[in-house]
């Protein structure tokens, strides 16, 4: 395999911003989702994207990973403008991030272990046994039992599926990790497990993590900062402790209504 140019230290070594969104507008027909939205993600932080249904969280995530183009505005990831990037550098960029999709996105025809090993098989010259070992290890890191690796994704429960999807997202040790609703559809115990898992992954590999979620537990326990989307822009961006005292009506409604429905315990320090 030809050695790839070393992109890790080139363009963005001096910059502390991993993702930079400027003046993002997204329209579907006459319906406008984002209007002049600005957001930047710092290196090494865990950023939560919150907001009600239809506030454009998932669309924004798709724009960050280049699956969708905003109607106007600029998306820069690792200092590169996604819109003007050629196919080769874009491919190199994709190797530096991992994405965990809401419903897993695991390939149904492959076993879980093959799913996790696939990125390694595609992008490295490692031999098959070592890839299997690494995949097995990543699965163990996410807390899956050893026999889960040989199963097909269809045979896993919801919580295990999320863990397997996370194992695949981190199989290349990405510097940037996108998680789309990592706890949706899980019971509270499994959701807590996933929260812990995200924190442990962050500790071990130190990636920047962007999480789209409306799970308040996850926002409180895991995220360093939270961006609340609404009215087509970022209404507020801060730590949860500060946000929960935000007077902005939409923001406070988002947090107080939900908190009334389900008790959440903010840290006492707030």
């Amino acid at each position, binding site marked *: *395999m030809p*050695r*790839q140019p*070393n992109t*890790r230290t080139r363009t963005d070594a001096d910059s502390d911003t991993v993702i930079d969104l400027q003046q993002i507008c997204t329209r579907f027909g006459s319906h406008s989702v984002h209007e002049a939205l600005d957001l930047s993600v710092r290196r090494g932080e865990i950023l939560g994207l919150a907001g009600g249904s239809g506030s454009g969280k998932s669309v924004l995530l798709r724009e960050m990973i280049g699956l969708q183009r905003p109607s106007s505005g600029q998306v820069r990831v690792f200092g590169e403008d996604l819109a003007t990037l050629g196919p080769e550098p874009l491919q190199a960029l994709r*190797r530096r991030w991992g994405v965990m999709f809401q419903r897993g996105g695991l390939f*149904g*025809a492959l*076993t879980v272990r093959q799913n996790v090993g696939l990125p*390694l098989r595609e*992008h*490295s*010259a*490692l*031999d098959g*046994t*070592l890839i*299997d*070992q*690494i995949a*097995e*290890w*990543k699965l*163990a*890191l996410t807390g899956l039992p*050893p*026999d889960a*690796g*040989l199963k097909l994704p*269809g045979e896993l429960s919801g919580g295990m599926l999320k863990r397997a999807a996370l194992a695949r997202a981190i199989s*290349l*040790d990405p510097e940037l990790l996108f998680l789309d609703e990592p706890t949706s559809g899980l019971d509270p115990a499994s959701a807590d497990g996933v929260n812990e898992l995200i924190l442990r992954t962050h500790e*071990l*590999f*130190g990636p920047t993590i962007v999480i789209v979620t409306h799970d308040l537990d996850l926002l409180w326990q895991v995220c360093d900062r939270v961006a609340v989307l609404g009215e087509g822009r970022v209404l507020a961006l801060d730590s949860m402790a500060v946000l929960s005292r935000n007077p902005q009506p939409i923001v406070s409604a988002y947090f107080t209504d939900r908190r009334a429905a389900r008790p959440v315990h903010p840290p006492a320090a707030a």
Partner: protein
Amino acid sequence: MRAPPDAATTDSGAGATLTPGPDGTWQASGEWTLQGLGTLARLAAPRGGDPPPTVPDAKAVVDGSGLRAMDSAGAWVLQRWMLDGTAPAGNPPTTLLNWPARAAGLMKQVQAGAGQAVLPAPRQSLLQRIGRQAVAGAQQAQAFLHFVGELAAAAADALRHPRRWRLRAIWHEIEIGGLDALPIVGLTSFLLGVVVAYQGADQLRHYGANVFVVELVGYAMLREFAPLMGAIIIAGRSGSAYAAQIGTMVVSEEIDALRTIGVDPLQRLVLPKIVALAVALPLLTVFADITGVFGGMVMARSQLDISFIEFAQRFGQVMQGSALLIGVGKALVFAFIIATVGCFQGLRTQGSADSVGRQTTLSVVQAIFLVIVADALFSVAFNWLDL
């Protein structure tokens, strides 16, 4: 100690290197990442000619002061090399010196995981596979019988409650399964008539028995080809559509929803399809008879000098009505087979979307197979009955 192959040749700027130091330590430096590993990626898999580097005192020291980056792939490659170098497994044999904190933490995690054996993918012996498939086949046959029984019960129930007949649904199914299939069935059958007449003409001319082409085309089309071709095309067209439609409904839990609301999916979905096909396929067969015989007429005129009028007159004299009825009767049975197998396989769909594709394929293959088996049985039975 011996330097591992390729180790020193790697680009010293960014790539990963592993070189023996002066005092028995190893220097790991550069980028031990997926990109930086380069040829070192194969270091961990010693081949016949290259024995792994041996460590005499079973305790190697790896100096990490030159490390610029390390990811889990790099850690694994290094770890496996270290395990290969010393015999006692399970006991991390190597000490790390001057490692950056994050890489050391990663290495510790990898060492903890390295002792675990990777479960081999289960392999089944030939006998096991045959056994499993036999059991699965038997179970499927049993389930099919069960399904036919349920279907009969549902049909009997529907007979007692004529209000439950969903005429509009039946008519809709006849339209898409029968009417829309007219062009393809007609064309196929016409071409088949041409082929049969052409092949026959070649043989009959030798004996001066040109006129027998009428019997040849007539009996072949009416008794065999028209029902069989119609059934095969409809199995591919409608049987697969039934399986896919019902399978998709299973995946999106619509079938379960119907059951919970108190609507029998067999009555609501399956029976109208079976009734519709039982009407449409015999009618399609009659149409295929007409176009097929017409194909034979065209060929007879051009190859054997038998005019349309001559052909039609002889057709009226020699053909018996039973030939038509036998063909149409067979088509009715084929229709039941195709619709039942299609719906059965659709309902056997489980879980995921790729299961829908599998069941659809299965429905077509099984329907065509069963149609041909039934056709063979009919031949034997008609022979006994002298029909």
